[in-house]
């Protein structure tokens, strides 16, 4: 039963026998309004072109016409699954620019929240990815675990999906004992679920056959397109902004960066599953080390007007390294706010990597990239 894993192997192409297949903008596998124009030779992909921009909402332009606090809520509309990571990048760069001191408790709360959000995002990805492969049930299990995180976050932040929780200088609301006990209960529960997922899904023979050795991504192609997150780490590139360019209180946590060298879809899957465990470790340590104190600084400028200059801050979100470049001319609205979204880079390697694959492998590969379309289009 050796499945021919010779994806990307040269196939005989008859130019007059190919046809164009429009995958999307409304297609179950693209999870949003992404369109992929595929030139097909039977079931094999000869050429593919991703077409984006169907839900472009001009977030960068909004960044240039809104004051800093007004723009805060836009960040969580970029990536609706891992919203807090994006807000984190934005508040960090503005704090860096206008030299706002953040209380330590607020930093810890931010880290805990971002990691919980990362777990929620990975859980949803896990469910959706297995659904891409045709297994519907794991999604329901993953969503049930995710629900616990959303409930916890809702109690503190006030919203379930598009949070506006971080403020310049701290967070909007202190976490209470209910949250802490809920989070403490959640950690062993999630570990148990992870074991269950590994039993239910990772060990499944069909699942393994569909992922192992399929869609190999070399280090070179990851570097060429600037891939990050599990896409790069599944190809053996040990890069995580939390370790390589530490920010916030991450240096104080003890956690590992899972790196796999198989370069295939299975490696990307395993990286994300291991990241859930690492995030749990961070939350556990964060809850243990959580200092007392205020969550907003005592001294904070009323109107945020960073001095003129060019500032950049990268953070590791659930989908990879997200960068915010802020160019300020000293006014209360930024001169330019460039958002470097990780999925944009991760997606664009699809065009090159999927050549020669069969459509079902290519769409499984696309699932393993963890695309969130609003985040690509911004």
């Amino acid at each position, binding site marked *: *039963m050796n499945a021919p894993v010779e994806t990307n192997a040269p196939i005989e192409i008859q130019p007059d026998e190919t046809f164009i297949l429009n995958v999307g903008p409304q297609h179950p596998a693209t999870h949003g309004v992404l369109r992929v124009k595929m030139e097909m030779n039977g079931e094999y992909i000869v050429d593919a072109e991703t077409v984006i921009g169907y839900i472009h909402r001009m977030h960068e332009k909004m960044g240039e016409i809104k004051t800093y606090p007004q723009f805060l809520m836009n960040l969580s509309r970029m990536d609706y699954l891992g919203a807090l990571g994006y807000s984190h990048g934005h508040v960090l760069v503005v704090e860096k620019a206008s030299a706002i001191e953040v209380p330590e408790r607020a930093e810890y709360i931010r880290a805990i929240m971002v990691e919980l959000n990362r777990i929620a995002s990975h859980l949803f990805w896990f469910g959706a990815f297995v659904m891409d492969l045709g297994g519907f049930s794991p999604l329901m299990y993953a969503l049930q675990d995710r629900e616990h995180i959303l409930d916890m976050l809702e109690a503190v932040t006030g919203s379930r999906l598009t949070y506006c929780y971080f403020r310049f200088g701290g967070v909007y609301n202190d976490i209470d004992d209910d949250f802490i006990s809920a989070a403490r209960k959640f950690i062993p529960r999630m570990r148990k679920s992870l074991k269950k997922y590994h039993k239910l899904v990772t060990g499944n023979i069909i699942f393994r056959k*569909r992922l192992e050795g399929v869609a190999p991504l070399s280090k070179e192609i990851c570097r060429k397109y600037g891939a990050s997150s599990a896409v790069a780490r599944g190809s053996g590139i040990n890069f995580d902004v939390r370790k390589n360019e530490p920010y916030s209180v991450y240096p104080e946590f003890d956690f590992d960066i899972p790196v796999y060298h198989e370069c295939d879809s299975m490696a990307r899957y395993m990286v994300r599953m291991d990241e859930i465990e690492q995030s749990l470790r961070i939350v556990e340590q964060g809850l243990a080390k959580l200092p007392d104190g205020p969550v907003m600084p005592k001294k904070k400028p009323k109107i945020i007007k960073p001095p003129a200059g060019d500032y950049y801050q990268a953070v590791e979100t659930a989908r990879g390294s997200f960068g915010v470049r802020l160019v300020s001319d000293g006014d209360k609205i930024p001169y330019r706010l460039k958002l470097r979204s990780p999925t944009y880079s991760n997606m664009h390697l699809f065009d090159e990597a999927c050549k020669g694959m069969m459509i*079902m492998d290519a769409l499984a590969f696309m699932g393993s990239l963890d695309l969130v379309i609003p985040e690509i289009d911004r």
Partner: protein
Amino acid sequence: MNLTLLNVIVAVVIAIAFAALNAAYLVWAERRGAARIQRRPGPNINGPFGLLQPPLDGIKLMAKQLTTPGGADKVLFIAAPVLAMFPAIMSFVTIPFSDTIVAKNMNVGVLMIFAFASMGSMSLVFAGWSSRNKYSMMSSVRAVSQAVAYEIPMLITTITVVMIAGSTDLMEIVNQQSPSILHWNIFPLLGNSHNLLMPLSFLIFFTCTLAETNRAPFDLGEAESELVAGFHTEYGSMGFGLFFMGEYANIVIGSCMTTILFLGGWSCPFGLFPGVWWFIIKLYILIATFIWIRWTFPRTTIYGLLNLSWKILIPLSLFNLLFTAGLIKVF
């Protein structure tokens, strides 16, 4: 039993009603089963336990307009869903549910059911071809290769059983197995062949049934994450409804055949009260397994599917056929 014309007509009507009722209520059973596996309630609003869901769904589907996509081959487009349902219903006519309950027993019952089962895959080809949709087209191409690949091991396995029974009459095949559970073809320790490899044949037959009925993990024809909805992408209204019901009717046929060929039909495992209820129990256990498998496994790939058939199932079933022939000669 005296087969007068009236008897036959009544029996045929009952067979068709059974097929249609099963097809409708298996949709409900599948949704409830899936919900149970996924820890959610499933359809539970309409009627007790949601039992009114299938007729209401039917009314909704019938009330919808049947649209034909522009440029589609209209005749084939309309014919395809009918062709999906009709062979399944026809097959029910020859299936014996007990030694008395059968619409029209034939001494070539096995052949007839396989002939109609092959027609079922034609409906997928017609639907995919006439829809004028690339996804449907790709799906129907897959369906053809799948049907070809899986009918061969299925037939070879059936021939093995037919050889043991010495008859293509379904009644006769069951009668051969009725003495005790050890005469059943799934493990015929006391039959006339003593073939200990028959559990393997049972597995092959069951796998092929899964593949033939386009069920997960072999539902490549309607792989919704790749081919949108496969061959029935362009169908709405009762066209879609017929495809849907045809799939479930085919599951019932497949399970009936498995019961008859391997599980001793209506004979009881302990020799108590043989009758139609044992058939029904076995049938629904098999169907429940179908549902269970569908909601547990992800989908295979098309090359994985074809490799499984050509490289594993066909050689194994051929070997078992020869082995059985040898054993019959010896004993």
